[in-house]
């Protein structure tokens, strides 16, 4: 049987909620797919549109953004800024011919260790259905232009 496609996901997690949730998942020994690799930022508000495009350009099949629940941001409202940029990005990548499922924003609090498992596993499944991004020539060109 053929080797199943293993998507690569770059995950930007905020330091105070989602990164801690991932830690909790660890201490609770919750098992999930090994396809997502985390870049820690202090706040989801730090996540630059360029980071996401760069990740796609560098060969990521999906990008996950994790922040605090609305109203819970450690820096009061950074996550709202993240939400705005996420919406912008969704439009942007659609125009570039990249499926929206490849970019996901999730509010995951420090208490929601299992949510990390659910989200990452879901995303891996979705990406396995979509297949590798580099197969998508048009998107590649566009990415090269912007990133």
């Amino acid at each position, binding site marked *: 049987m053929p080797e199943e496609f293993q998507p690569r996901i770059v995950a930007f997690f905020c330091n105070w909620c989602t990164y801690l949730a991932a*830690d909790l998942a660890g201490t609770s020994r919750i098992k999930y797919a090994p396809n997502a690799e985390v870049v820690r*930022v202090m706040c989801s*508000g730090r996540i630059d549109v360029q980071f996401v495009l760069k990740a796609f350009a560098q060969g*990521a099949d999906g990008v996950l953004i994790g922040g605090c629940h609305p109203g819970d941001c450690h820096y009061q409202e950074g996550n709202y800024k993240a939400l705005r940029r996420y919406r912008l990005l969704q439009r942007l990548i659609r125009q570039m011919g990249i499926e929206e499922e490849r970019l996901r924003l999730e509010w995951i609090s420090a208490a929601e260790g299992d949510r990390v498992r659910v989200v990452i596993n879901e995303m891996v499944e979705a990406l396995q259905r979509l297949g590798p991004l580099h197969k998508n020539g048009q998107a590649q060109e566009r990415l090269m232009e912007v990133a």
Partner: protein
Amino acid sequence: MPDRNPVRIGVYTCHCGTNIAATVDVKALAEFAAALPGVVVSREYKYMCSDPGQDLIRHDIRDHDLNRIVVASCSPHLHEHTFRTALKVGGLNPYYFHMVNIREQASWVHENKAQATRKAKDLVRAAVCRVALHEPLERGRVAIHPDVLVLGGGIAGIHAALTLANAGKHVYLVEKEPTIGGHMAKFDKTFPTLDCAACILTPKMSAVRSHPNITLLTYSEVTKVDGYVGNYKITVLRHPRYIDEDLCAGCLECLEACVYKQAKVPDEFNMGLGKRKPIYIPFPQAVPQVPVIDPETCIQFKSGKCKKTCIEACGERHAINLQAEATTQEIEVGTVILATGFRAFDAARAPGYGYGRYPNVYAALEVERMVNASGPTAGEVILRDGRRPQAVGIIHCVGSRDENTNRWCSRVCCMYSLKLAHLIKEHTGAEVFNFYIDIRTPGKGFEEFYQKLLTERVHFIRGRVAEVTDWVFDPSEDGKLVIRVEDTLAGFVRRIPVDMVVLATGLEPRADAPEVRRLFNISCASEGFFLERHPKLAPVNTFTDGVFLAGCCQGPKDIPDTVAQAGAAAAEALALIDAGYVETEPNTARVIEEICCGCKTCNSMCPYHAISFVGEIHKSRINEVLCKGCGTCVAACPSGAIRQNLFEDDQIYAEIEGILTHA
């Protein structure tokens, strides 16, 4: 400023015993790292966080003159500080360091060793690429305001406040209720020693009142929190008591004088079992000794037609002011201790047990008041109709260990149920049945107390009660409450008729916990209790510096544990205060003026108003003291003129590249 020497990186892979080594091939990882650009030394070791582990780093810095360090071990939230200190001691700027989390994010969450190792390699590669671009940074310092806010006047808050006050710090003790004392003030005896709660609590309460270093703000709530560790500005809302605390002498003649000759309002402190007047004092030893008027029930407030006999009685003192209104007060503190306590589970949420349906089904706190000599029944355990119960059933784990209500074990119910069993038997001589799933007595003298109860012939039936009903199956059950349960040890189902049922309700987070959490910017665990920074190593700290936890707001615990935790929280606060300052992380943002085009996009981004626009040079500027380092402005700057220490764009790009470069 970036240093010119060529990058010489040392990579250290930790086994963490077998925590990492079991699922990640540490040898392969270390060899992989050794081959990465700029890596001079790559080692793996059992415990990097141990002294020998840290020495390893220091010696290599010296012998191999390393100028960058990467440690692949656990979460930076656990040991980043440890290793940065190691660098410092080794004579290297602590920010030439990056940590890779291959435990929480690899070995503990993946099963396939090959995949876990592959991921660990990616992460290490990313760190190596990133650390090469690190620059030396210095931590800033912020002076700490020596005053402390303690929120909640239960035993936890009281103990913390006294500890701090005795250490010469000024404490603001804010309590929602008209008196301090919390739940403990309601108890009669405390387990397992059975010493009287009042006798050990009330002296501490009066100590609070008389202590020169404590400002007691009862009947008050925190409504706003500004600032950060060292310099908090707290807004406190003070509800009107209608009696001036400074003028009142606590003679309580106003209570006597009230036009209500008989108390007729259900009394909150006695769980509604007793009655009080519209003007009342929660209980005789209340602190402060100042009555409070309840506008809901006071005739003057309802109709405006009252003889105001209370005001007459007060006479020359003029302590009573029915026009009084809520006031707000601003206080400045450097540290905060949250001791907001718990809420008892509402027994009506366990419908099978008939609370609220059958009058003689009681919640534990009601019985606590009943057995209390100064309670509504003067210590008599009686049914609603005044009869003495001949048989009493105590049902454990009500609202606890139950997927339908609360999952957790509330920790104190077993012991307080045993205590109540003992007291009820003592007061009434009734047959007492305990219905339990497990008896949990992990504490000093707890198991001994259990043994004592067994020899007192209190019945212990292992089985979770299915229902409490008045259905009469057999004439012997007429007029009784019947408890139906499987006696799982005897191995058959039993029907046990009793006169009184006591529900050992569990502990749960207060309804206002989410608001408090948001005010102080801390996290809650999934069940809603406040989340400590580390379950073992930082049990009273939160993820917000300068905010500490004490007592049941962090999770169910008994009095000794609460007091111990309160002391610990006070000590943590003292440690900060006496240091005089806190070091701030250097991950602040700065504007590169040459690039800034003065578009002001960033100005509105900052929630801390750290960014200002300098008119004369037509550029924005960031005040590093105010900047908290979230980086939102950095991402927002259209011309890329803002940069953030430790989270520079090129550092993050390097990290992304590192992750995605296929090995």
